[in-house]
């Protein structure tokens, strides 16, 4: 049965939500603090205060999703849970971190750009959304690529590094100050298309969805879940 949701998946995702509730609360407080801390930078002319949030999101992924992605996947394999359900539960649970990050980032953006909701807030939020979805899939895919038997141990680090370079470049380019500093005018036009046009945002989301499907497929073909 090709169900995308089931009682088993819900039990797994609910456990993840409940398990990390306290840590999420701590993270929210920390981010709020950093929001005020880095607010000083914004006041001095640094327009985009999103860097600490992106950093926090990256740390959050590594701290909280790694044990789930790997150790607890093994735990689940012993229980009567299908590989398919555990793969979907992993994707969904990590997507919860993405929702949390979006909420926090939205609050920050609304505070800094209250005068330009559609121009700055909406596009930045959508760009971040695409970035997080892509990073989420890339995160899952890294573990799955690592476990595939057909790639050589020399090729795997290269492949995973390449993927992360692309993902992080995409993330850093959405950070406006950085991209303006790095890229000439023509490329900034491309960025404007990518980050501030409906088609560009759509393309980014399709990339994220494509990577997510790839991650799921790889997970289902893994030789080992340990």
């Amino acid at each position, binding site marked *: 049965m090709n169900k995308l949701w089931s009682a*088993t998946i819900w*039990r797994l995702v609910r*456990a993840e939500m409940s*398990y990390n509730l*306290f840590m999420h609360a701590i993270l929210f407080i920390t981010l709020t603090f950093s929001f005020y801390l880095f607010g000083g930078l914004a006041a001095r002319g640094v327009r985009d205060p999103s860097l600490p949030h992106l950093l926090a999101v990256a740390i959050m992924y590594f701290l909280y999703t790694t*044990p789930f992605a790997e*150790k*607890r996947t*093994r*735990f689940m*394999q*012993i*229980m*009567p*849970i*299908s*590989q*398919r359900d555990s793969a979907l539960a992993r994707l969904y649970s990590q997507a919860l971190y993405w929702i949390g990050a979006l909420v926090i980032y939205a609050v920050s953006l609304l505070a800094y750009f209250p005068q330009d909701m559609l121009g700055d807030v909406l596009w930045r939020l959508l760009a971040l959304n695409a970035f997080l979805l892509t990073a989420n899939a890339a995160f899952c895919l890294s573990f799955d690529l690592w476990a595939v038997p057909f790639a050589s141990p020399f090729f795997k680090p290269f492949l995973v590094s390449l993927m992360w370079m692309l993902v992080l470049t995409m993330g850093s380019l959405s950070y406006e100050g950085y991209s303006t500093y790095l890229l000439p005018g023509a490329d900034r036009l491309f960025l404007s298309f990518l980050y501030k046009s409906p088609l560009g945002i759509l393309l980014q989301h399709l990339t994220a969805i494509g990577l997510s499907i790839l991650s799921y497929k790889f997970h289902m073909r*893994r*030789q*080992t*879940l*340990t």
Partner: protein
Amino acid sequence: MPNAFQITQLVKKYPGFMLGPLNLSLPPGIVLGYIGPNGSGKTTTMHCLTGLVKADKGEMKIFGRENHPNRPAWKFDIGYVGDAHVFYERWTAEKNLKFISQFYPNWSDKLAKELADRFRLPLTKKARELSTGNRVKLSLVAALSHTPKLLLLDEPTAGLDPVVRAEVLDTLFQVLEDGERAIFYSTHILSDISRLADELAFLANGQLLGRCAKDDLTDSWGRITFRMRDKAQLQQVVEHKIEGLDQQVVSRDYGVTLNHLKELGAENIQMSRMTIEEIAVHILRGAGQ
């Protein structure tokens, strides 16, 4: 009733190691000790059987059902404890058990509580605060509380100090002696399982060396000392030591060897029984030579 498990032509390759082709089955209610040195393929067999690792070739059935990764109903009948004990670390032992219980229709909270009491497991402690011994106990309680018909134990006491290991095994064996279930227990420490096992299977370098009833081994293997001028080629002998006229052999069928010695005119023949540990060492050493 189908076998508790049936492994047919299992092959799993890793760089520099190949398990199989392996054929092994376990009838219901039998305790099979799976004995082999480190790196012989015991854990790989367990992982293939439990679906933690995908086999390259072969078929595995649990109570007649294929161990399919996306049709997990076969897991209702098994309890598994491996060398790694992974839990939600910030949850208490009790909450971890509650989480696991959701996935087993046969789970009994009463049994879980009883087992925790017998193991003296502190249920209110968080998993990350549990000692290694208590983590093993928690894994055992989790594996037993849905009354599985097949228990797969893969060196569950690995990493424990001798005192805690003895305590865990003592309680585990008391619990297991009560029930009628098939048990597949892999270890390289034979004394861990010799008390409980009905049969023993020996594995070395990914190959099954043999399998027999534990009592048959102790009944047939023996150490014989005798006095004889020459060194003879004796039947069924796996080890032969000579010190002057005194000789000592280890025989896998001492009845045959004794008769042969009498025919050859050996003097001062004395026979002593061997422990199951001594026999296992000889079997596995033979595979290494």
